[in-house]
């Protein structure tokens, strides 16, 4: 299991477009992938779940990956967070 805290760095926050991109990325991997924030733990393979996360710039999320391809999944998805969802 891989657990990592990430920070939202783009101005618009985790809005609908990045939410959709994250879910599409997650769908490519077999491992489980959860995002938690303020006590809310969301299955990140669910678009409607990810959309319920209100994550503005500066807020912190905990990402958890668990499964065979967890390393690859975490690298790709954490990188997307670090790039500020390609909106920097």
């Amino acid at each position, binding site marked *: 299991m891989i657990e990592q805290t990430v920070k939202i760095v783009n101005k618009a926050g985790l809005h609908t477009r990045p939410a959709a991109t994250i879910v599409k990325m997650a769908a490519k991997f077999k491992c489980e992938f959860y995002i938690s924030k303020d006590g809310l733990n969301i299955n990140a393979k669910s*678009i409607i*779940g990810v*959309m319920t996360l209100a994550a503005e710039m500066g807020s912190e999320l905990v990402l958890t990956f668990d499964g065979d391809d967890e390393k690859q999944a975490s690298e790709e998805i954490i990188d997307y967070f670090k790039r500020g969802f390609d909106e920097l």
Partner: protein
Amino acid sequence: MKKFSQIFKDAENKITGIAAAPGIVIAQAYLFTKEKLVINESEITDVEEAKQNLIDALAKSKKELKKIFAIAKEKMEEKRAAIFEAQVMILDDPILLKNINDRIETEKKQPEFIVNDEISKYQSLMMHSYETYMKERAGDIEDIKNRIIRNLQKKRWESKIKNDMIVVSDSLTPADTILLSRSNAKGFVTDHGGLTSHAAIISRSLNIPAVVGTHNATKHIADGDTIIVDGFHGYVLVNPSKEQIDFFKEKIEKLVELQKSLAELKDQPAKTIDGKEITLLANVDVTGEIDLVITNDAKGIGLYRTEQIIEELGELPGEDEQAKIYLNLSTRIYPKPLVIRAFDIGGDKFKFLDFDEPNPFLGLRGIRLLLENQKMFKTQIRAVLKGSKNNNILFMLPMISTVLEIKRSLEIIHECKNELRDEKIYFDKGLKIGIMIEVPSAALLTFELAGYVDFLSIGTNDLIQYLIAVDRGNDLVSDLYQEFHPAVIRTLSHIVKEAKKAKKPLSICGEMAADTLAIPLLVGIGLTSLSLAPATIPYAKRILRSISFEKSKLLAEDCLASATVDEVTEKLEKFFKDNSIKRTRNII
């Protein structure tokens, strides 16, 4: 035997409305109330059926969203496009769907209840957020939730529709009307809508009697009641007495006889008694009508409303699919002409999720939308060209209001022709291009606009509503929608004169052309080509064959000098009386 007026005066079980499509029918009522989004929480017995209904409703919702997206994507800003994409993804959300399916299995309740409950959970999480954009997002989720629920309810209703019933509804969309006609609806009664509402137009096309704009039919009629619909006079009788049933049964017999005699007119020319020949063309909404067009011996298709293809298919068809439809239709009618009108989308004809226009009728519709969405426009033009192998297709542009719109359209058409030439695909090099005259500015500029095109066609429905500034779908003012308004008649006369001056053929294809009372007036003004619903052609032909062209001209002059609707109507009625011409509604 009592007279009609007597029967009706005595009736306490009557509902009045607008006579929207001719015919009389006695049958059971089926109440089709779809607007209210009331969640049904009842238990289910067949879990597998419920799960299948969910799958179907999700597929239908996806199709609808894709249709909206295909039409709107060029105009959609990126943010809206992302929300649209997310909505489509929700329909495939594995976690959400698993929860819903699990709950259907364990709780055995209507899927619409479980869908509502599950999705609302997420919404309440969003609503509790302090971020304002989260509340907006909850609204987007609301859209998709309601769409799924609506489609689930539709499934539930569809399974309830029995054959051979009269459908009673608050209002009907074109898609509803087509769907219901497939289950052999015998008649339509609606609370809202006027003569030119889509339910009315399509009922006339499909030859199903209809009374619309009753205001309260859904309140007075219960599911399963026996009702009589008189589509000639606009009356509905609820749970009729034996006397009323006998009376209308006799009317139906007379009607059958009349229709037989009308059928005999089929091979007779549409000529006035003094020898003036009028071309009677057909308006086509749904491809299924083509049989009726041929039976009634229309001289061609004067208006093919292609936006109905989108309604019928539930999605925007691609180039080849469209080309096939156009080629088939032109082959069926060959060698007579087929006028294809470019998609007239917008206004009341299509509700976009993404364009909440304050004034849709004055907004992005017809040619304006096509010029903004050139990809869609080009797909249709290429399809029309590809389908033009029989050399009998004409192409018509809707909602033209300026010369520039014609010029830009012609450029795009030219571009498409060059493309096809390069691709070595055959098309009719002489394909004629025409425009609709349905906006007052176009009417005034008839002569100038005519210089750029090969033919013109008046669309009275829109022309009247724009001329009088009245929304035909708004019950509060729809009384003001008057086809015999002197301003309408003078405008029509102006268009006729200017088209003659420009030496360009002119036709008229609105609902007014199908009003038997209007026919002598239209002919008298100088119109020589009328395009109307195929079912109404024999009625129009019967009137034409009993009037005099010379007398009609005098009538038109008289009407052109009138100042009020009442004066015009009086003159028309007097004309019918003086010349002993009986309207169909007065014969049976």
